[in-house]
């Protein structure tokens, strides 16, 4: 990378490879995401595709280092600060790990209230991200700049679901998505506030909650708090009855307007979901029973490979996690202590498992042929093949819906997983009748389907919240108003929490010794998605999805905005504070002719 920013015309670096005209295009920072991400690519304009992609993150903070020796009860307060948009997912996941380590189980009402808070978070975060951040990539201003032909077509294409959302043409939808001036953009911003109010009703403040504790939640369970939540939930349900058909129209239009668009951001179906929303009837937070209560979650955990469910057992998911160093700015912990040799069921725990990881930062120059990011490479070992799979989360929703659909376990009054789809029922609201939506397993894991799944999951979270509300109120009416259970902190213990952050898999692993934190490693979605090439040379999912993405943008290299690449990256809902550092250099275009073997494909 050090040389790549200098114009070097016509220099071939390797005589053996066939010559391709590649132009380096870098974007640093990627905006409209959370955190600092850079994307560095080489584009083959002649063949209209991205030849190479490197992703880099430019921030290191060191949570695993400064948490050592701290009181284990503080873990959720501290780890919430990892992320500024889904901090509460971290706090919740930390509480799950604390509950396991401390051997405590919250009262049912406490668990339902935590579920309500988390449901509100999904409703908020996807809402803001989908239409205030991602949506801008599909707005009138952007489409006019990148694909005037598509804008032309959008003006002449009527929206199939116009009766449901009120926009006559696809162009009307695009105009409404213009930042700040677009009506739908502003309405979404308002809905993101309403849903945050719902969150604050349960968790006190946003985005770092104040009412979560190991053992449950401190929110006083009153009739009022549920009334206030319910009236807002109904408004959101009504909103979703318009928004979901709107997004279907918009995304279907892209397939139609740009044949082949399914290839944008496409990669092999390698999805991970760690499950969300515990069922207090089954979840006892013991490791021993984790496989069973994991399958009772209201979003089913699972690993989906090539469209097939490999496992939905959280123990299986846990013991096969591996953290590989790859091309990141860290030293190996080969000589550091192994904290956990066996799990409580007697399964061997690998040295490269989060329980045994020791974080040793080594700041250094960025070198795309060597180390280029602060993100390590988490992988999941597929015992069937011995492959270290670079699972992605697809930004969260696509993996959650896929995993839930295939397992076919979730069934409430409002949700049903069928084996190949998920049915979502939203009850009657002020002006709209009851509606049932069905998310069907798509053909591809690509940018459009990741984005589409997001809007379906907004409806899913809403439908799930109706159930949690019913259950919480039942507890309240029955006089079971306790929301928190007492616990003591053991001298020695281990714990793990599995959850879904808004943008995908989240795990927290803790080791307690002498009543203090001896080791703590959170693994949020972004390290899974935004990691660099690992020790085997396998690129991380962003890199993988962007490489071979075709270019549909009408602009040539001189005015190139990289919109198809942006849509591919943003479909993953990048959230770099969680630990992704993609290197997307700058939009500066370099007239560099390189061989395709830029850097080392299998670096290190």
């Amino acid at each position, binding site marked *: 990378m*050090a040389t*790549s920013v200098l114009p070097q015309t016509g220099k071939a670096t390797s005589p053996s490879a066939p010559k391709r005209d590649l132009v380096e295009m*870098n974007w*640093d*920072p*990627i*905006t*409209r995401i*959370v955190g*600092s991400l*850079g994307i560095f690519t080489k584009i083959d304009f002649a063949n209209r595709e991205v030849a190479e992609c490197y992703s880099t993150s*430019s*921030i290191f*903070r060191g949570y695993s*280092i*400064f948490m050592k020796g701290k*009181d284990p*009860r*503080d873990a959720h*307060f*501290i780890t919430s*600060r*990892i*992320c*500024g*948009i889904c901090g509460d997912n971290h706090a919740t996941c930390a509480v799950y790990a604390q509950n396991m380590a401390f051997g405590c189980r919250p009262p049912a009402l*406490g668990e339902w209230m935590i579920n309500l808070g988390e449901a509100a978070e999904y409703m908020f975060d996807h809402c803001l991200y989908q239409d205030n*951040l991602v949506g801008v990539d599909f707005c009138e*201003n952007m489409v006019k700049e990148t694909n005037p032909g598509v804008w032309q077509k959008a003006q002449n294409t009527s929206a199939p679901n116009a009766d449901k959302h009120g926009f006559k043409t696809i162009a009307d939808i695009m105009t409404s998505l213009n*930042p700040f001036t677009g009506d739908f953009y502003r309405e979404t911003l308002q809905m993101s*506030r309403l849903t*945050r*109010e719902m969150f*604050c*009703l349960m*968790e*006190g*403040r*946003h*985005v*770092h909650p*104040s*009412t979560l*504790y190991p053992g*449950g*939640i*401190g*929110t006083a369970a*009153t009739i009022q708090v549920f009334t206030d939540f319910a009236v807002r939930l109904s408004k959101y349900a009504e909103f979703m009855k318009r928004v979901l058909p709107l997004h279907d129209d918009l995304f279907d239009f892209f397939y139609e307007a740009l044949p082949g668009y399914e290839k944008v951001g496409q990669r092999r179906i390698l999805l991970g979901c760690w499950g969300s929303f515990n069922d207090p009837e089954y979840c006892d937070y013991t490791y021993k029973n984790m496989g069973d209560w994991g399958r009772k979650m209201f979003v089913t955990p699972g690993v989906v490979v090539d469209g097939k469910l490999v496992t939905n057992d959280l123990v299986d998911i846990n013991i096969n996690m591996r953290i590989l160093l790859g091309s990141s*700015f860290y030293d190996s912990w080969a000589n550091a202590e192994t904290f956990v040799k066996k799990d409580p069921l007697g399964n061997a725990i690998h040295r490269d498992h989060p329980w045994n990881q020791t974080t040793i930062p080594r*700041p*250094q*120059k*960025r070198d795309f042929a060597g180390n280029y990011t602060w993100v390590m490479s988490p992988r999941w070992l597929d015992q069937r093949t011995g492959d270290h799979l670079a699972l992605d989360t697809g930004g969260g929703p696509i993996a959650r819906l896929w995993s839930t659909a295939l397992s076919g376990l979730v069934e409430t009054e409002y949700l049903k997983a069928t084996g190949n789809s998920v049915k979502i029922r939203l009850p009657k609201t002020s002006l709209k009748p009851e509606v049932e939506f069905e998310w069907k397993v798509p053909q591809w894991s690509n940018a459009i389907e990741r984005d589409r799944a997001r809007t379906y999951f907004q409806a899913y979270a809403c439908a799930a919240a109706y159930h949690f509300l019913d259950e919480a109120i039942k507890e309240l009416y029955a006089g079971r108003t306790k*929301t928190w259970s*007492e616990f003591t902190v053991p001298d020695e213990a281990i714990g793990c929490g599995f959850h879904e952050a808004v943008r995908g898999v989240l795990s927290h692993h803790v080791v307690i010794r002498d009543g203090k934190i001896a080791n703590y490693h959170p693994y949020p979605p972004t390290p899974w998605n935004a990691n660099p090439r690992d020790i085997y040379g396998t690129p991380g999912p962003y890199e993988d999805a962007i490489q071979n993405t075709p270019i549909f943008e009408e602009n040539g290299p001189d005015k190139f905005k*990289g919109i198809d690449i942006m849509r591919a990256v943003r479909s993953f809902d990048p959230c770099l*504070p969680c630990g992704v550092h993609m290197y997307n*250099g*700058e939009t500066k275009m370099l007239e560099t002719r390189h061989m395709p073997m830029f850097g080392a494909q299998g670096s290190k």
Partner: protein
Amino acid sequence: MSFESSSAKQVKPAPPTDVHIVWITAGLGCDGDSVSITAAEQPSIEDVLLGAIPGLPKVHLHNPVLAYEVGDEFMQFYYDAESGKLGPFVLVVEGSIPNEQIKKEGYWAAVGTDPKSGQPITTCEWIDRLAPKSVATIAIGTCATYGGIHAMAGNPTGAMGLADYLGWKWKSAGGLPVVNVPGCPVQPDNFMETVLYLLYQVAGMAPIIPLDEQLRPTWLFGKTVHEGCDRAGYYEQGDFALEYGSPKCLVKLGCWGPVVNCNVTKRGWMRGIGGCPNVGGICIGCTMPGFPDKFMPFMDEPPGGRISTAASGAYGSIIRALRAITNSTVNKEPKWRHPGKELTTGYQVERH
């Protein structure tokens, strides 16, 4: 790091028609403050940008989380601010400032790429380039104000607050010290109101922003959590929660409200909803310069709290007992409110 203020004694120039807000989120942070301001409604970000507030200059926001532009197009605003091409701007810094001097090479925090070296440009360098040229520089959130979570004991990055980095006596081109709006994350309206105040000031409509010794706006941080807490009445009556989930005063469960400068209990989190102890969350002091270390372990009773809660426990229980008697009296209607043929209100027909 000191910057000589020149504008303070000058003749008042005409207020600018356009003001830019240049935002650096690349401190050691989580972007939680940027996300937080999208929740603000008093004023909202669209109120400010769309010109809904009379008297304000036209405001242009350049924040990475919300920007339409990407990569170099976005970075151009930073370069233009540096060269003076952009015009008057308020700089907002989010995230703690790492110490880049404690290691041989590489970077802890950076944004954008140096076109010459191909290496990332550190956040510290951007602060050095931009802060001295700003009309005002605001540190948003506790990381940027005082270091916060990432400056916790044992941290590897040497993180600190912006005023630690620039100097507590440092002044912007507009003659202001760093303006600190702490909170982890910042309370949405607290920040937007501070911006609004500074814009009024730039427009010549408000006097210099009043700041306390910790450089916080006095009207936002002059009171304690406890002074605004809707559970403070329980404290007065010596009635303390002994388990989480209780509606009573949380001091014995780890709440630091009585000694923490923050208005969240008065203002709530948004539209008056939420607000830590009001809802059932202990105050962990997240707005304070001493956060987090001086408040840990968070779930233990603050050491200083024992004496005061013992005292309020003693007199509070007597007051509570007496109030219970009065409360029972005022819970009964006066005896003359009844049906029947007889009027017992004491009314007498006047006879003349």
